[in-house]
């Protein structure tokens, strides 16, 4: 089944199509959440909630505005960030930790053994720390290119070429 058709049927509230999409993307969505939340059980719960949300918002996805996965990723990270913010509020901390992915990579910070730390480490092998930081900001924390450029005090053009080289590195590691 072609992805476009699947998405179309899902948008027509077809639960079978939705289940297929769930099976395709659940691990990715949960992984993206886990990088931010760093709590396996809580991440799983949030992931379920995110899929309910995705179902409710199905008609809001507009294929002319971006990839379906990008849309899913955006909903997932908003939910994850909300979770961390509400927790951080309780802990009287103001900001998100800046080094989620870096922490996982270096320390295998998530205590849940189910996570594929080795797989993650092999994917990120050879990446410079500023690469991992940029991936973390752009893909997991949802910074726009402008926000990332400002945060890192770097021109937007440099942000673009740097993320190109970082992702290329991961693609080499995949091969």
């Amino acid at each position, binding site marked *: 089944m072609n992805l476009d058709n699947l998405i179309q*049927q899902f948008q*027509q*509230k*077809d*639960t079978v199509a*939705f*289940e297929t999409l*769930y*099976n395709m993307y*659940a*691990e*990715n*969505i*949960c*992984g*993206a959440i*886990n*990088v931010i939340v760093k709590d*396996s059980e809580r*991440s*799983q719960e949030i*992931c*379920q909630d995110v*899929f*309910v949300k995705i*179902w*409710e918002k199905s008609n809001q996805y507009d294929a002319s*505005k*971006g*990839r379906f*996965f*990008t*849309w899913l*990723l955006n909903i997932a990270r908003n939910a994850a960030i909300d979770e961390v913010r509400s927790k951080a509020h309780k802990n009287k901390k103001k900001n998100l930790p800046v080094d989620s*992915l870096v922490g996982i990579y270096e320390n295998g910070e*998530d205590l*849940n053994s189910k*996570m*594929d730390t080795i*797989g*993650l480490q092999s*994917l990120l092998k050879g990446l410079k720390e500023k690469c991992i930081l940029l*991936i973390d900001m*752009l*893909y997991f924390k*949802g910074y*726009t*290119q*402008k926000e*990332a450029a400002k945060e890192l005090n770097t021109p937007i053009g440099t*942000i*673009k*070429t*740097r*993320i*190109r080289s*970082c*992702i290329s590195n*991961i*693609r080499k590691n995949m091969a």
Partner: protein
Amino acid sequence: MDVEEYIASGILELYVAGALPPEENLEVQHYAIQYPKIRKEIEAIERAILELTEAASPKMPQDGFAKVKAEINDVIPFTPQTTSSKATPWRSYLGWAASVLLAIGLFWMYTENSKLKSEIELTNQEKQSLEDVLSNTQEEITLKENLLQQLRDKNVTVIALGGQTVSPSSYAKAYWNKEENKVIIDGQGLPEPPDGFTYQVWSLKLDPLTPTSIGLLDDFASQDTKLFTLENANDSEAFGITLEPEGGSETPTLEQLYTLGAVGS
């Protein structure tokens, strides 16, 4: 456009991240349709991110979707059509068709109702005018009965007034009630007076001939019964009717004497 250079710029990585401003996002979208190479590159970048996020997953439980499904069934109770999407248009068209029919039906009933209302209105008006006619008729009957009563009164003397030289075929009658000093003139046998003229009724004493005006037959044309009631306290010996200029004359114009009749003993 240099596709290689475009890919090398890193814009596609930011597109997958959803980090581009809207106009650049649209541009990538556009090129992805135009250049298959760009689309393939986008898919390759996405695969890398899928790989990365999957590696970070704590692994979802096997029954993960069952929980989601239970919840969406709670959230959205009106989703019975998990079957073919081709069934959907038929059902929704049916709904639309039904509402269109309903609208037409309501409109039809509304116009029918308006029609009936105006018919009732019309019937009421007809009824009203018939009632008016009836009451007019009753009034007329009463009037005529009164008149008949007056003419039949035992004190009434009937005087036939015959046509004279100017109009031999004319005739009239006077019903004179001496007790009540009233004369009713029946002018049915008189022609309609020309414009600007009116009939004037005279009480006459014969020896010597002394005419006294007792009144005018005003509005002769519009008087249906041609019966005119006049006062007459004279000791009349005859009655005559002449044609006079409108408003009447002091003395009768004898050349225009239409009818004349003497009171019998």
